[in-house]
């Protein structure tokens, strides 16, 4: 400790503005490290924001298994719900088989839309309604 202060003293006093070579190297390295850390942090933050808003489920990135399962269940759910509505309309108004046919295809379209939304191919309902990408800082 005593050594350290003694070393510093002449350096600062003797040549003002020009520290010892050791000190200069150290401060330069510290500076570089600082810079690298801040760029890394910035990148990470940007990546997280991007992931959250580009795709409505960050979980999809966690595992391809979950992503695949989610995509398939979205499509199946759309078709099943469409067919169920069509069947219900047929049952109520005895229009068999037209309700089932029409709503089966509508359900298929809805399933594909669900699928594309999850996959991030088409913008989400919000973004389309806003007609601009949602800014990440707005709702936080």
């Amino acid at each position: 400790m005593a050594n350290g202060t003694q070393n510093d003293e002449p350096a600062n006093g003797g040549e003002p503005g020009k520290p010892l070579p050791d000190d200069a190297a150290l401060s330069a390295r510290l500076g570089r490290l600082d810079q690298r850390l801040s760029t890394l942090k910035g990148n990470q933050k940007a990546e997280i924001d991007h992931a959250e808003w580009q795709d409505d489920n960050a979980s999809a990135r966690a595992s391809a298994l979950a992503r695949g399962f989610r995509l398939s269940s979205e499509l199946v759910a759309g078709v099943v719900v469409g067919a169920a509505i069509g069947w219900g309309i047929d049952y109520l108004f005895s229009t068999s088989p037209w309700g089932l046919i029409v709503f089966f295809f509508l359900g298929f379209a809805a399933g594909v839309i669900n699928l594309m939304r999850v996959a991030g191919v088409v913008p989400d309902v919000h973004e389309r309604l806003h007609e601009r990408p949602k800014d990440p800082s707005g709702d936080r």
Partner: protein
Amino acid sequence: MDPIHQFQIKNLFTIGTFGGHEIAFTNSAAYMVVAVVLTALLMLGGTAGRRLVPTRMQSMAELSYEFVAEMLRSTAGEHGMKFFPLVFSIFMFVFISNIVGIIPYAFTISSHIIVTVALALMVFLTVIIYGLYKNGLKFFKLFVPSGIPMAILPLVVAIEIISFLSRPVSHSVRLFANMLAGHITLKVFASFITMLGALGIAGIFGAVLPLGLTIALTALELLVAALQAYVFAILTCIYLNDAIHPGH
């Protein structure tokens, strides 16, 4: 061994009858109680000390709070935090019950579609009721995208409505199917061990293969259990976001 046997509902005792129906306390209900009690113990135990440097228990409680709160803030915004109790309860209930379900001989409640449908419908109805209460008729703008020509508007609205109605279906089926399929696979591979083991000395050596696979599948199931709880909770957040801001 029947791989479906593990999902059988057994009546433990009868609470009473209601309108001619028996109100039974089943093994499913018992494991739901277990999940709730474990969550309550974790939270009460974790917040009892309130130390500056958290103990393991407190750290777990804080981590689960931070995790769900961050998930809700990032998907539904700061307004979404009023739904924090709902999302946190759903997440912890599904997560703890899935983890408990991996323990051998335990019952997995989310492998029954009635349980996941009940949870998904709760979220779905919350979205509709809160959306109508908060936004009134503007809530229906969710189904009417702007900038669509009048000619195809009815078609688009019909598709949007079906897409909206299909949400609870995919929401519930995903969790249910994952847990059911995982546990059946595990059971089938485990039964191969006993089948091969009964064949004599060569069979015992052969049984090492399914044993290894069963161990690997158990690890995978642990991942799936946590991941599906997360997916269920984050979808809840995304749907709640529609109720809070239906495109204003």
